[in-house]
């Protein structure tokens, strides 16, 4: 009868050390998250009131207390909505092309590759492109719509990727059953494939919205600044919540920095809420798919 040899001490120590390092890495990664959230809540809570949410910065002097982000919140909601209206149809149709019509041909491979590359386009470059094309080349003014255009460029690849993934999950049996009944391909896609994948697609869109809602750089170059409420995204400079934070953070007065923190808190709440709802939809839809 042979006994199983014990693992030598040096090997065991090495194993333990690596395990410690791996745990440490995870702890290190969580520290900044906790620190950011804690600081934002601590510094932002002071001004987080109804006054902040319902007033703009109009007629608020450099050192005045008060003022709010109402104009910025309106701007962000409108810009993100328009960006979604542009990018969701294009992104969804592209995903449909890639999954249902592309058949791995040269065009679909090219589109697929450049969608991946497009996810890596820096947000500031998307803003510069709209600046160069929309403002400088076409001579259009700075506006909320221009900002929405730049955001839609950042949204499109995310929407395509998530929608594509969801469409591929739809079982082929469903498509075949529909074809067997003599239903045309496009009606099969509209009536069978899309409804099946719908919740997944909504999750993807919401995550994409959450991503662009926090983008500052493209807005900086396309929306410009304003302290007043501008409900019309098509004319005149607008504001956005991230832009508001950036603007206030750059001012030297403590009152402005306070507003920046509260703006940051509002922004994080919006983004986290979108994220959470998106994940909940995904979970509610597919309880078995948890990993």
């Amino acid at each position, binding site marked *: 009868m042979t006994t199983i040899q014990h693992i030598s001490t040096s090997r065991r120590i090495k194993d333990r050390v690596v395990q410690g390092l791996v745990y440490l890495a995870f702890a290190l990664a969580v520290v900044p998250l906790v620190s950011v959230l804690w600081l934002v809540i601590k510094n932002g809570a002071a001004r987080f009131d109804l006054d902040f949410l319902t007033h703009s910065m109009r007629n608020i002097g450099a050192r005045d207390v008060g003022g709010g982000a109402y104009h910025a919140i309106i701007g962000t909601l409108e810009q993100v909505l328009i960006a979604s209206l542009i990018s969701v149809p294009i992104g969804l149709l592209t995903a449909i*092309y890639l999954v249902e019509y592309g058949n791995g041909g040269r*065009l679909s491979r090219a589109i697929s590759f450049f969608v991946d590359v497009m996810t890596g386009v820096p947000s500031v470059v998307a803003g510069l492109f709209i600046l160069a094309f929309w403002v400088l080349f076409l001579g259009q003014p700075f506006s909320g719509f221009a900002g929405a255009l730049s955001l839609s460029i950042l949204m499109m690849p995310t929407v395509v990727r998530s929608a594509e993934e969801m469409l591929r999950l739809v079982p082929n049996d469903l498509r075949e059953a529909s074809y067997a009944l003599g239903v045309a391909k496009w009606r099969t896609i509209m009536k069978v494939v899309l409804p099946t994948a719908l919740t997944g697609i909504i999750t993807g869109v919401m995550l994409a919205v*959450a991503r662009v809602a926090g983008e500052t*750089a493209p807005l*900086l170059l396309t929306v410009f600044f304003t302290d007043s409420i501008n409900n019309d995204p098509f004319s005149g400079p607008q504001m956005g919540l991230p832009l508001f934070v950036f603007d206030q953070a750059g001012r030297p007065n403590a009152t402005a920095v306070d507003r920046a923190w509260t703006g940051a808190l509002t922004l994080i709440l919006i983004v986290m809420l979108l994220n959470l709802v998106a994940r909940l939809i995904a979970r509610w839809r597919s309880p078995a798919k948890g990993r």
Partner: protein
Amino acid sequence: MTTKVSTRDGGPATSRPASRRSHGEGPFRYAATGAGIILLGIMAAIAVFLISEAIPALQANKGHFFSELVWDPNGSQVFGIAALAFGTVLSSALALVIATPIAVGVALFISHYAPRRLAGPLGYLIDLLAAVPSVVYGLWGVAFLVPLLKTPSQWLNENLGWFPLFAGEGAIGGKTMIAGSIVLAIMILPIIAAISREVFLQAPKMNEEAALALGATRWEMIRMAVLPFGRPGVISAAMLGLGRAMGETIAVALIFPATFDITFEILTPHANSIAANIANGFGEATPIGRGALIASGLVLFIITLLVNIAARMIINRRKEYARAGA
């Protein structure tokens, strides 16, 4: 996965009588194809319009665009990308050096160390790092990280000042390159961790179990079965992170002091990047100044494009290889 249902125009699985063909098929198909082509068109248009709007400014440039350190397109019309490009590359490289080991550790933690039940929620926690908007990281960096780094920076400078990165005279600490790089590292960590985690989870179970059955410790199993398999994935994840770090704008625009020089002294308040300069310089830019910023954006676009294409090619090659092995 590989079964093809849809063949073009009446393959065996989908053939239907021509008379039953719906009127909507053609338009729908064209719309889907058109949307894909629009996406390709946008990528091309980004390049075309950045170039066309940059040319007038480049022609008005009185210095050499690639070697000049000064950035003064609004006044003397002398501007060059050298200092900015250097800052972009150095800050992202530092961010990558800081983030990659931690991200790999996090990925291993989620894929092989954490209890199964907790792995999902803990992974989500890391993903939340990516959900924090860039401007919030900038605010946090200025208010929290910059003061926090003051003392360690001075200590490093006094005791390890012979090392080029820690050298420097006069003011040490404050809005430094290292502060910006740490913030960039935090921002790219989730993407590197997420991709690495996926790759580690794909590592062949058989190899892992074989290693364990031969008496390997967990670390030996990971070193023999998981890491060799995951290496290309980790490399491309790091490159995607690098592209992200280079294009990151607002956080570093708030932290970097917007100086125009080339120095490796990361503990002194000398730092800038292409993206930060665009965000900080746009407000007071003249038409030539805007053109100059667009030209710098074009350089950034090309650099990130190359990094991303390289990363994607590694991933895509990997995908086929994994599918063939499965």
